[in-house]
């Protein structure tokens, strides 16, 4: 009897210890186009998936030849946008080369310019409080110091203490964080895509490759900042001319390359142009090669499962890149819902 009791208690204890916990997952999308005007399909998906956050790219910051040294380009244009239920998170992409010409003394001004521009653009279509600002920059060792200073100065601009500052983090920045540095932010957004060498003809899929990702994830739990997760749902064609990568053709699908009078499928995802032709606004020459890269839902879901187990945060934003009618056509609600749901238990 005693043995039975002890066994029962042990089983209970073991079950408790192994029980999966649940966490709060905030489903989100990235919006990366210049025109903010959701199509009916985009609205349908954001409604059905109960999207709570929309990371909207407000503008890019790039270097400039004029006295200002920097410029805000590809600024968001908004028409007929009605925000029903999600938070708008202003996102700013800063090119790494922006920092080349900047002195430390220029950063204060740039931080003010970025913050003021965000406020101006946001107030034009969304009156809700600014809860988060996200900065996207693939910084290098040479620009790290200036980028981190800019982040610090940007946060100093925030009028509300409730506004958080987040930034995108690439996979290699997790594995080598001692070297690449930890940005001074509240949360990171792990970009779980664009992980392969795009310009190499040998790469099979530069968007998402779980085997490759494994090499970078070993130190995920050591990363000192809580990480949200961004997963890809996009496709593109990588165009090679004379073995040199020259262009990306966005939203390319296999069906676009199905015309056998113009394209010959050379390998699994590689197509040869056999007759010079236009393809989605690009003129291709005979002999060009296209590597079709996609984000297969099975791979995205497997990535979600893997990352859900690694990520121990009690609250988590999971964002899909990106909200676009052409992209959404390739995925059902259920498939995308399953991606978000993978993260609930951990």
């Amino acid at each position, binding site marked *: 009897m005693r043995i039975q009791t002890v066994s029962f208690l042990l089983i209970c204890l073991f079950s408790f210890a192994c029980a999966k916990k649940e966490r709060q997952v905030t489903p989100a999308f990235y919006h990366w186009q210049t025109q903010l005007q959701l199509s009916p399909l985009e609205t349908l998906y954001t409604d059905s998936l109960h999207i709570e956050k929309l990371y909207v790219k407000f503008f890019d910051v790039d270097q*400039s030849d004029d006295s*200002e040294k920097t*410029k*805000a*380009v590809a*600024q968001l244009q908004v*028409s007929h946008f009605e925000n029903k239920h999600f938070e708008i998170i202003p996102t700013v992409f800063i090119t790494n080369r922006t920092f*080349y*010409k900047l002195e430390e003394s220029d950063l204060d001004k740039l931080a003010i*310019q970025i913050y*003021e*521009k965000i406020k*101006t653009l946001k107030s034009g279509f969304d009156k809700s409080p600014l809860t988060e600002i996200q900065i996207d920059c693939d910084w290098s060792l040479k620009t790290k110091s200036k980028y981190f200073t800019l982040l610090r100065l940007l946060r100093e601009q925030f009028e509300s203490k409730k506004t958080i500052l987040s930034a995108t983090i690439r996979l290699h920045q997790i594995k080598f964080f001692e070297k690449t540095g930890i940005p001074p932010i509240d949360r990171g957004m792990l970009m779980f895509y664009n992980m392969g060498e795009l310009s190499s003809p040998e790469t099979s899929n530069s968007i998402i490759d779980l085997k490759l990702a494994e090499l970078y994830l070993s130190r995920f739990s050591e990363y000192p900042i809580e990480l949200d997760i961004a997963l890809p749902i996009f496709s593109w064609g990588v165009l090679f*001319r*004379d*073995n*040199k990568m*020259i*262009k990306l053709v966005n939203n390319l699908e296999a069906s676009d390359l199905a015309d056998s009078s113009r394209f010959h499928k050379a390998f699994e995802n590689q197509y040869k142009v056999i007759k*010079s*032709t*236009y*393809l*989605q*606004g690009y*003129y291709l*020459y005979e002999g060009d090669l296209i590597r079709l890269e996609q984000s297969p839902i099975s791979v995205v879901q497997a990535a979600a499962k893997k990352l859900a187990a690694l990520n121990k945060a009690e609250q988590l934003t999971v964002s899909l890149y990106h909200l676009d009618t052409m992209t959404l056509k390739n995925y059902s609600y259920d498939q995308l819902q399953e991606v978000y749901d993978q993260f609930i238990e951990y």
Partner: protein
Amino acid sequence: MINYKKCMINLLSTKSRSPLLVCGLLYSIFLLGPKDGLACGPFYNYFEGYSFIMPEIFDEDASTAPFFIGFDDFYKTYKGPELAQTSGNVAEWTETFCQLVKQQDVYELIYNSSVIDLELLRTSIRSKNMPLDYRVSGNSFARHLKREKCFHTVDYLIFAKECEPHVTQPESSWDKIQRDTASMYKLIKRGKKEFRKSKSNYIKLRYAYQLIRLAHYAKNYRLTLALEDELLAKIRPVESIIHDWIMGHKAGALKNLGQKTEAAYLYSKIFLNCPSKRASAFRSFHIESDEQWNEVLLMCATTAEQANLYALRAQADESKAVEEMIKIYDLDPTNENLEVLLVNEIKKLERDLLGLEFNDKKERNKKLFDIPRKEVGNYVIKLNGFVRNLANEKKVSRPELWRLAEGYLEFLSGDYYAANKTFKKLGPKITDKLLKEQLSVFQLALDIASYEKIDELEEAEIADIIKKNALYKKYKDFGDYLNDKLSYDYALHRSPGKAFRMQYNIRDLKPNPQLDIINDLLNIFKKVEKAGEEPSKLELAFITKKDGTTIEAELLDMKATLLLSEGKPEAALEAFKALPRDQWDNYQFYVYRDSLTDCVNCKPQDSVEYLNKVELLEELFELEYKARADFVNSSQYYYKLGIAYYNMTYFGTSWKTTDYFRSGANWGYAKLGIFQMGGYLPYGNKEHQDCSKALFYFDKAIDLAKDQEQAARASFMAARCEQKRYFTSKDCKYKPYKNEIPDLPEEYRKYYDLLITEYDHTYFYKMAVKECKFFEAYAGGK
């Protein structure tokens, strides 16, 4: 300034040689091309190669030429779409007023006046008594408007000024865009009234433009098209660039309304006809599919318009324009864009192929720009086939240009024989002056590339090219081209000294002297001195400095210094002794500073005796002899030798005996011995950090020491040599500039341990502990 007199005196007394010629050669060889070091600070990577095609070779009147040709050249003169539009606008206003007004005044009044300034002008025009405001009283345009009472024109200028904030970008991309749709519609309403009121067709046209532009910027694309329909129908034909500007807004509206084929066609027309809108039309021209392309082709009214479409497509980045050139030729063999595209393609191929074998920046070009492009060989063959056809068929405007291009493409593809034959055959047939010059330039480039082994005859020929050939001087790339070619050939045929001098100044060798280069250059002197042969003009240029003196003394000193740094004092002495005796004292040293601490810049006491290098080496030999012969004092002699050799390294006060250039920064990352110095020194900077010779003597001094104090002192110095060996080892993590105690691994502590265990009772040991912080730490840790 070049000292011609000295040239004459010093150039080996060659009577027949013109001093001017030699100094000119020096100037030509060494001052051409950006071979000197780059300054610190931001710099941009740019492709480094050559080009011999003349931008003026195609038809100067080709409308698209300034846009297509050499984006580098284009951007030098092109100031952006706004400026192109401004200058077109100002020119037209000036023309409208029959050139009675100055262009600068038109510009000032239109672009630098405010609404208030213009309203003042209008009041002045309407008033009999009110003079022009003092700010415009000297402006010929304002004066003309007042004199002729052109208040309708001023009304229009005021209206245009009011439209401006809504239709232009703010000066800074960080500023808020001032566009206000409600105000824009009010302006459209008001503008329509003014349009109706105006009696001048020209002013009506300008009002129409402003209204159409406002509608476009308000994103009311249907209104844009409606206004264009409505207003233009009410204007009698008037010649103006405004029609093209209006067409641009119409194209934009059509594009936004999904009528992309019509939009693309209009953009192509603007591109062809309107220089002030060419850049923006090029950016906006977009074809989505083959079907759309065919539809646009069908919309073209003429074959010239169709050919223009192909020319536009050929301008995309990474295009393979020969495909478009074939189409253009089929449509319109005399189309001006054919020549423009030909020159453009040749310029690209020059980057890939011209001097590919010998360009000293070829590895850098490959790494940074992936040049030459892969498969470029096939492309040049394809282009040349097409070019040859055109030259043969003679349907193009200037068949001789195409034949010339054929020869040049043969040259670029490496077929020198065929190229030479084509050039020679073509020569007598060319009458056009520019083409004649172009042929001569290509021929010169071919001649230089054709040199195989540079002997005296070739050297004389090359010297003549440098000195006398007018084209060589006119085309700036020849200098670098020739230097690279000869440098490559000299290196290939084992003349490293000459190869070096084709590219660099002798001072660039000093941070890391190379014995083969020095000896090769010294051979030129030997040839003169021993065999009595005269150096060629080029050789003379290699061994002569700008002031007319020779580099012999520098070479000998460099050789001796190098040998000394390599631990070969006997050979070094021989080299020093070859220097004229009166130059020995140019170099004075004191090498016996004996101190517990390192100090590279410390000056010895005034009382010490300085030695020149010959005296120094002779003294070192004497010390060595005494150390072997005088057994009683041998330890002291060996110790003194050790001190001398230690001080002659990177870490000592007399480092200048074995080196010319020392960088303090190299201390911190002294791992490989040679420091690339950002790539601006051909062989980098080699620091003489090897203390092994000094250690050898200190070791001997320990072994032969007759007293404990002497052994302790020698042990300490030996330990310092070991410590420096650690600092310069690959696994050293210690940063000297951090002022920390270096944590020496076991294998580098032999002599410190010896000092601590065997000589801790000596006076020297106590003094070392007191004076030397890290030794104190080592001793304490024991």
